[in-house]
């Protein structure tokens, strides 16, 4: 369970996240748990000292990246989600994201995705970067790397979910995503292996 102290620390991290990122997580809660679910999260965030109303979130606005992390961890805590369930949440929230909808036009080929993926990251965050250094249509894999983005381990699971769904959309087949490198495990970056 996230403490007030941990929350304060997260808020202190540099970098911003677009309101869309927070909103889609809460969209998922609304879809899955209804208004009551939203209320629970809002109450939890107030307890942590960072009041945020779902309806007041500006999707295009910029919020501290730590606030997004507080919301995510609160969701995990309030609904007692395990890592797998957080990953599933990641799969589901892709559909709510306007940025993803904009990005979807590049889902025609892996090469196109590799070219565009840094741009889409920048749409979401003001820190870190996302690249696809290696991929093969033939061998059916892609390596996705997140650099300079050490916020909270909850992102490892939720981003796995994102990549699974985006991968499915890109290759028209069910995909599996594994985190092969993690900054919280001492690696210089996060790296994910997507196969299908």
């Amino acid at each position, binding site marked *: 369970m996230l403490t007030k102290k941990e929350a304060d620390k997260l808020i202190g991290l540099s970098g911003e996240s677009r309101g869309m990122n927070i909103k889609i997580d809460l969209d998922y809660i609304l879809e899955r748990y209804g208004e009551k679910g939203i209320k629970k999260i809002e109450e939890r965030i107030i307890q942590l000292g960072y009041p945020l109303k779902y309806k007041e979130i*500006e*999707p295009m606005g910029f919020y501290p990246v730590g606030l997004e992390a507080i919301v995510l961890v609160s969701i995990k805590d309030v609904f007692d989600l395990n890592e797998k369930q957080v990953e599933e949440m990641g799969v589901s929230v892709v*559909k709510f994201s306007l940025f993803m*909808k904009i990005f*979807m036009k*590049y*889902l*025609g080929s892996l090469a196109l995705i590799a070219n565009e993926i840094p741009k889409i990251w920048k749409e979401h965050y003001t820190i870190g970067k996302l690249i696809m250094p290696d991929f093969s249509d033939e061998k059916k894999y892609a390596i996705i790397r997140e650099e300079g983005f050490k916020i909270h381990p909850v992102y490892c699971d939720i981003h796995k979910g994102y990549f699974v769904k985006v991968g499915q*959309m890109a290759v028209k087949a069910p995909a599996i995503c594994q985190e092969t490198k993690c900054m919280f495990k001492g690696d210089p970056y996060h790296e994910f292996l997507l196969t299908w």
Partner: protein
Amino acid sequence: MVIKKQENDKISVLLNDLNSLQSYINDIFIFSPLPICFISPIGVILEANPAFIKISGFSFNEIIGKSIEDFFDKREIKQAINDTIEKGFVEGKEVWFSPKEKSEMPIQIFTRVRIDEKREKIGYFLSVVDLTEIKKTQRDARRALMNILEDVKEEKNKAEEEKNKTLAIINNFADGILVLDKNDKILLVNPKAESFFEVNAKDLIGKTIPEFSKESPLLPLLEIFSKKSKEFFREEINIREELILEISLVSIIREEEKIGSLIILHDVSREKLIEKMKSEFVSLTAHQLRTPLSAMKWSMRMILDGELGKINKEQRDFLQNNYDSNEKMIHLINDLLNVTRIEEGRFLYQLVSADIGQIIEEVIKSHKELAKKRKIKFEFKKPAQKVPKFMMDVDKMKMALENLIDNAVRYNIKGGYVKVSLEKNKDKVEISIKDNGVGIPEKHHPRIFTKFFRAANVIKIDTEGSGLGLYIAKNIIEAHKGKVWFESSEGKGTIFYLVLPIRRRA
């Protein structure tokens, strides 16, 4: 510092605009009643609105990332996608859609290719229109139409069958039939009618009877048509020497409206021939019988008058009985001969100018003896206005009056009366013969003037009548262009009325 603030303000305004735009696009997409989805170039569903989710029966999560081919007939959707890539769009193509847990549904799809700023095809929009209800309505309408068509066909077949049956009946009918429409145009002529008139039906159809010329085989029909305006029944016409027809014209009425007429031609040639042969036989027989009966009469008369010697009373009585019977036989034979002549049209009249009053008086006088015997009072009311003499066959007129007056006396009650009156009315004479006798039962009224008919109540009184008297009387009166009829009530009496035209020339 000020510039930085202005830039921040502008960014803030732009972000607000972006938020509003995003919200606006989202609202349109969500609230569109038309199911819409966005497909990637490789055929993956990337976005779907609530209407599409609803029609598919899948959840949002299930739809996104799924291949579009999973929702449609593969061959049909591939073709539609190819068309979209090639032409840029597909308009209203009908395909089969496979929603979750539902049977396939017919839909129409509309697609538009999506192109980015580099003119690259980056996917396409696809919307669907559910045709289930339309197809169901079409099916129902088609079924209803088919049912109607089947019913119509069935009714048509029935009508055809009925028509064929009717035609078969008409064509095979023993009588000739001509069917006319309401304007008297000939619609149908059956084979029998063709043979009667020795014509071909196709030469008659479409024409009206008055259109036929005097040379036409239908001339006899034309003549009868010109005489009779409306319906007629059993009018006899001679078509040829060996062909006599009875023609009837009846209206065909449907729902109180005349829709045409039917001419029925009944061949009575055989009946007429038999009747003629019968008359000839009766005539011949009667003639053959009358001669010996006349000889017997005169022989008996001579014996009764004592010209051949004296006879005793017993012998006279026997002989008188025989004489009376012989007289009756002669009377009957004369009646039969008269009937034969009437039927053969040989009832020739010797027309002379005569006084009808005098004839009546003579007839009454000849019945005085019988009336006296039966205590019947005779009364003859003479005309107030003098009746002129007019042309008549005296013997036949006398015969007619005798028959009527004889009946009045013979079938009267003891002590009854017979009142005869004669009146002149303009150019006619009116005679009535009234009695208070046994009368004629009502059920026998229609047959009273027919040959050999005798009412049941008179047979009980007199067994010897021939039943020819009134038949002969009627024919005589009508031959003089007159009329005869009666009023009678059983047990109360009868009045016969005669009207004769005063004809001063033959």
